[in-house]
């Protein structure tokens, strides 16, 4: 289920420093045990809905304030919304739009937990839950932070009785919001739990999207616009092309692009250069075991697919690019619209906020990736050195503004002014949990956030830079199921795509359900509680216990996530 996409309302008012304007709650407003209380609060960025859900009994004094992930702000036609999961999401609502017909758009409903199951488990532990909708949807960090601050004010001014601590937690974009909330409100926030955070912010995330879209435009479909959308129809058109092409490749009705490149290999190259995982919810990246027995050529003759580990990754990359496409395209539409509003960029002027004019794409394919997957990308009958051929085509247009996407400095400045985490919450206990294989917010985001916090642990004094200390911190990575999870049809020839979707543990925030519904999230909260309420050693002990008892976590003290692909290093 795709739950986090960004979009925008061009009419939004966006002051970047939140100024809460809500009137304080009175003691009479306090939400009682067992109650669900709802209301609205108004700030400089608009009015937001909030919700508080109290435990039935034994409130432990800690309020968990949740920030939800992306919700698309612009209606998406049902034909696209359904495969993206919007149509079945409780956080989207059906609308009918002239010209688009039946569509779905993210709602502004308040949300207190990632799922009902997680909410019930947290309530049972005595937590009070709180959460807001945002005044607008899309990349709504500023709106989410203001909503959270308004809600904290409400809680602290009597919205809940007996509050000792407020901890913030959030998923995906909501993890970013939670982090910023903690950084800006060190005296109000006692701890942070970030789930599959997109911490590196829009410039980094959409540089990956740019890599994919530029590769697609060059090697697969030149009619793709890619950036600087001047109408919503242009963005929807790009999304239609990408999803339609991926579906055709999956169905075997498209193999070579109109410009003569193999689509699956070109898409694989795009994903590798963007740093997307080499496995997906259905494809584990391992060879079909039957192929291993009979050999690649014999398997090809017998109709086996995917044939090898590399081919499994090529298939996985089709899924991963499909999963990331909505964020990459609709999210870009949203951000460009925000840039237009913030910087006063006219609808006909360039609103691209991350240019690629000088990017040397071949530098984004690492030596290890080239060696590991080169054979697969070269496996094109009748074509010598297909990989170099594709890379040469991508690099050939360096400096050519007609074939690349120049940026507008004003748009860059506008997007950079949207709040992003800066690591200043290093004195607040922080727990982060993400999946190892996440095509929306790659695991390197969590490593990035760790580095950011670590970089703040030293302060300048008269005696030089000294360690500040900081608070307890844990960074957990969840693993896919331990066995190869691509299952095959009875005769072993083709993958059975329905066999293990929810069990793989691969995907954006796709924590392992087979370990107990939400157990990895609850485990993360238990660790945070130990850090907040006891001590650093107690938090560390709890972390070890959670890793052992819940399972599905990387159990390796020296683990480091795959670093993000930094496009700036390829310029």
């Amino acid at each position, binding site marked *: 289920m795709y739950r986090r996409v960004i979009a925008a309302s061009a009419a939004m008012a966006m002051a970047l420093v939140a100024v809460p304007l809500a009137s304080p709650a009175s003691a009479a407003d306090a939400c009682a045990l067992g109650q669900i209380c709802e209301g609205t609060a108004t700030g400089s960025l608009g009015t937001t809905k909030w919700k508080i859900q109290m435990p039935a009994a034994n409130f432990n004094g800690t309020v968990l304030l949740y920030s939800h992930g992306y919700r698309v702000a612009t209606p998406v036609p049902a034909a696209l919304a359904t495969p993206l999961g919007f149509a079945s999401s409780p956080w989207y609502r059906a609308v009918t739009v002239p010209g688009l017909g039946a569509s779905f758009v993210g709602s502004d409903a308040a949300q207190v937990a990632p799922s009902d199951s997680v909410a019930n488990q947290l309530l049972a532990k005595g937590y009070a839950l709180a959460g807001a909708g945002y005044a607008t949807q899309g990349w709504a960090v500023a709106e989410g932070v203001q909503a959270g601050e308004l809600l904290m004010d409400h809680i602290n001014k009597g919205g809940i009785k007996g509050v000792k601590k407020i901890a913030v937690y959030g998923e995906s974009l909501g993890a970013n919001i939670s982090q910023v909330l903690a950084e800006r409100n060190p005296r109000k926030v006692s701890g942070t739990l970030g789930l599959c955070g997109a911490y590196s912010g829009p410039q980094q995330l959409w540089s990956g999207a740019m890599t994919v879209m530029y590769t697609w435009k060059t090697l697969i479909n030149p009619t793709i616009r890619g950036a600087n959308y001047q109408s919503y129809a242009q963005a929807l058109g790009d999304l239609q092309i990408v999803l339609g092409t991926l579906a055709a490749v999956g169905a075997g009705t498209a193999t070579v692009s109109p410009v003569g490149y193999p689509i699956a290999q070109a898409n694989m190259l795009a994903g590798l250069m963007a740093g997307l995982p080499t*496995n997906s919810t259905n494809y*584990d990246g*391992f*060879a079909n075991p039957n192929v*291993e*027995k009979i*050999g*690649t*050529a014999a398997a*090809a003759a017998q109709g086996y697919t995917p*044939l*090898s*580990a*590399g081919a499994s990754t090529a298939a996985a990359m089709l899924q991963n690019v499909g999963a990331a496409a909505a964020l990459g395209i609709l999210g870009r539409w949203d951000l460009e619209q925000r840039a237009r509003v913030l910087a006063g960029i006219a609808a006909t002027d360039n609103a691209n906020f991350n240019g690629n004019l000088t990017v040397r794409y071949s530098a984004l394919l690492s*030596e290890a990736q*080239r*060696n*590991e997957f*080169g*054979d*697969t990308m*070269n*496996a*094109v009958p009748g074509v*010598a*050195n*297909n*990989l170099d051929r594709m890379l040469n085509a991508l690099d050939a247009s360096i400096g050519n503004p007609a074939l690349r996407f120049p940026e507008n400095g004003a748009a860059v400045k506008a997007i950079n002014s949207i709040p992003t985490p800066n690591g200043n919450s290093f004195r607040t206990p922080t727990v982060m949990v993400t999946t190892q294989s996440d095509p929306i917010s790659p695991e390197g985001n969590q*490593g990035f956030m*760790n*580095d950011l916090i*670590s970089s703040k*642990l*030293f302060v300048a004094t008269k005696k030089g*830079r*000294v*360690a*500040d*200390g*900081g608070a*307890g*911190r*844990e*960074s*957990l*990575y969840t693993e896919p199921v331990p066995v190869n999870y691509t299952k095959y049809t009875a005769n072993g020839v083709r993958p059975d795509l329905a066999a293990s979707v929810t069990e793989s543990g691969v995907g954006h925030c796709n924590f392992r359900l087979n370990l107990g519904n939400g157990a990895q999230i609850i485990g993360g909260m238990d660790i945070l509680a130990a850090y907040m309420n006891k001590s*650093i*050693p107690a938090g*560390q002990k709890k*972390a*070890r216990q959670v*890793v*052992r008892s819940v399972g599905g*976590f990387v159990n*390796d*003290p*020296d*683990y*480091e*996530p795959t670093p993000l692909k930094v496009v700036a290093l390829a310029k």
Partner: protein
Amino acid sequence: MPMSRTVRFLAGGLAAAVTAALALPSASMGAVASETGVSPREIVIGSTTPLTGPAAPGYKELAPAAAAYFDHVNKNGGINGRKIKFVYYDDKYSPAETKKVTKQLILGDKIFAMFNALGTPPHSAVVDDLNRRGIPDVFVNTGYSGFDNVKKYPTTFPYFPSYVVEAKTMAYFIQNTPELANLKRCLFYQSGEFGDNAKAGFKAAGVDFATETSYFSGAQLQPLTAQITALRSAGCQLVVFFGVTSATANMLATSARAQFAPKWLVTSVGSDNGTLAGLGVPNALLEGLYTPSFLPLLQDTSNKYVSETKAIIEGAGLPWTYYSFYGATSAYVFAQALKAAGKDLTRKGLISALETQSKNFRTPGIVPLVYSKTSHLGYNGYFMGQYKSGLLTRATDYIITADNSLTSKATRGSYTQKPPTAKMLP
């Protein structure tokens, strides 16, 4: 510490202060009393190699042969009082499998060092992680020249000559052999890093080709008719081939059917006659084929490396082949490195021993084994061999040496092989 914790430090020199501030347990700080994988009685080493699957023929003999040699060492007292525990897993030449079993070796088996990991694509999937963790990555079984990079891969030590070195030595042989120098020469290669390395070596040596053609990995058993037709139409008199053994078999068979009979010069990784025979290539098709080699000839039982290793291999009930010879003798060199690292065995000590003492090792190569603090080249050249009546013979009584530089050529060299130690014990 059984958990996932990632606290990376941007300022390495300040790491200890940060760690103390975070009050991490000492186990995460690397300040441990003994080295991972080393106990008073045992050294644990690991390997990943294809034992099954399409890449297994030939290669599957390497690890069992090395294990047989380590058993031989263990029966004779071990190394500095420690027995070697050699754990190897089948990775099927699949990078995803390699990651999986390497993780098991590191976290489950807690290896001290990786030994003889095989294949450029599989090893590329784990080499960064091994180096980041400081795990010695000794005698990698791939000719990819990029692994000879002390700055990027300080713990990785290639063993057999790189494809760049091999191409340069082939170029030297062509240029200095009157019978070949003036023939119309053509190149047939596998697309990707394998062929790229070869082409880089030939370019550095100043050798070009009248025609080039290629196949891609995975298609080596599909018809090569188009490529052979192209070579034949171009009038190629000498075909230099850089491909895997199964592709060599396919190429020779296809050429025979087309009555195309140029002189062949084939990469060492694609020319083992035992493996080719297993793929159905008769000796007649190999007659006269040139191929480089850096090990003594298998039939030369006057060479102590051959006779002693053969006894160990056959004593263990294993087949006596080029690959079992290679596997056991590379284990012999590794054992010497372990001994040279001293009783207080550490990963850093092993790397230092390889970099500073390898010139004292007894090695089976006909060419020097070159390691230093600035180069992890490995064996630095070849002699040229030629198949005659099903046996590889020496076509040159000299050796040809080179390095991985893309600006220098190979040169004619000389090297006197030192005999092995008694019973081939380190």
